[in-house]
């Protein structure tokens, strides 16, 4: 029996180190608890998710900027049946689109520390980062206390 060493290519989480992605800085910042993205130095375009070439002006010069770590729930639901492989143990979990303060980005995320029944449109949520079992890093949002 062959053992597959993680991370393998068909799991859900992105490969995060500099050998595999040019936006590895995003994950390094996430490890420090910060949600960041790229801003085009030429036209000022701010994009989610991070980019290496600007779809607006065709520049490839970017700076990293920090996004707000709070926002409000624009929409939400819960996964009760049919979760993908590796996520069955998490069911039920809440999913929501978080409208980040001062932006137009409605970032899809798990909403932790809460139940579907306790959520509402407009509910305030804040960023929380965590480490995956294999050492990679990821994020979710949780209700503001």
């Amino acid at each position: 029996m062959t053992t597959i060493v993680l991370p393998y290519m068909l799991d859900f989480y992105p490969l995060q180190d500099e050998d595999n992605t040019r936006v590895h800085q995003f994950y390094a910042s996430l490890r420090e608890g910060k949600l960041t993205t790229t801003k085009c130095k030429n036209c000022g375009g701010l994009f989610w998710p991070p980019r290496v070439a600007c779809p607006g002006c065709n520049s490839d010069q970017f700076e990293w900027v920090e996004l707000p770590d709070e926002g409000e729930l624009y929409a939400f639901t819960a996964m009760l049946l049919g979760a993908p492989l590796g996520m069955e143990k998490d069911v039920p979990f809440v999913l929501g689109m978080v409208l980040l303060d001062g932006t137009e980005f409605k970032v899809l995320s798990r909403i932790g520390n809460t139940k579907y029944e306790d959520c509402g449109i407009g509910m305030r949520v804040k960023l929380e980062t965590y480490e995956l079992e294999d050492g990679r890093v990821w994020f979710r949002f949780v209700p503001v206390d």
Partner: protein
Amino acid sequence: MSLKNVAIVACGLAPFGVRKATWRELVQEASKSLFDDVQNLDKKDIDSLFVGAAMPERFAFQSHVAPLVAEQVGIVPHKVVTRTELACSSGQSAVRTAWASIVTGLSDIALCMGVEKMNMPNMLETQTSMACVLEREWDGVQGASAPPFFAMCAQRHMHKYGTTVEQMAMVSEKNHHFSTTNPYAQFQKEIPAEKVLGSPMIAPPLRLFDCSGITDGAAAVILTSEERAKEFTDTPTYIIGSGQCSMASNLANYKSLSTWHPLKIAAKEAYRSAKIGPMDLDFAELHDCFTISEIIEYEDAGFCEKGEGGKFIEEGQSNIGGKMPINTRGGLLGTGHPLGATGIGQIVEVMQQFRSTVPKERLVDGAEMAMTHNLSGAANVHSILVFGRSPT
């Protein structure tokens, strides 16, 4: 260059459902059905093949499917041979691409085969594969797949327009009723609205019967120019318009969940190119992957005012005898949704309606014009074809 009018001259189906058959066997079944439907056609004259298949790599561990299909159906395409992939719209994409190829004169006779084999021994594999229809690295990774996305569309539509779960259940009831008239459909039983509302919750507010099935199936058509159509059938169906639009991929960049802007753009172009208004159509096949989808589509395809989709189903306007009969073959909810086959399955219904060969209880008598619509992924791409019994 003079552009050609294009006709569909034959259609075929493999029964949709949880099939005890492989991917390639479904192709053969649809092929047999297709060639049983056409007269005077020498297979040697089919010069092009377009295969609509969303995920054969995941569901059947098979890539490079176009030559496989060519061999299964017994043709040697020598002008164009390719596969079209656009998730849930892969089938319509095959027909759109074949249409474009005939319009320009590159292809003379084209075969389109839409197919998907989705039921696997371990359904977890299917569920997992479906998550990569969304943007996997940023959205799929969160554990999202189609039901949670459309659940949030439903929530926003309910929040903004007062649409109710009862109205959504009526869509399911209607389409399951139509599918009882369709022996090729996955679901053969009436599902009254109360049963929809009592079915297990999948992703609130969506319950089991708000969702289309996991389905195996295949569907096929043959296209040629108007000039040649009469050689093969007395009742060709003409493609008279089309529209398509893609807007955003990552959910963060969506303008709205309750208004599908790319559908509005695709519909506007489809009606413009066909030189008609939406209410000139006699019926439509809309992509009801979930009950809420059909309600939003009534509105954004222009069959009712924005926000009144719930009222449209409640008043029976999408039933036969209403303003715009929708999904007479049973829709995706009743017929099932084998991704690559769905778009072509809808076209088969249009053709059979025009020929008046569907059972009487779902016949739209005297229909002259119809459209088929597919959305794909998280409703970020919308594709429409408009059909007529006459070429203009």
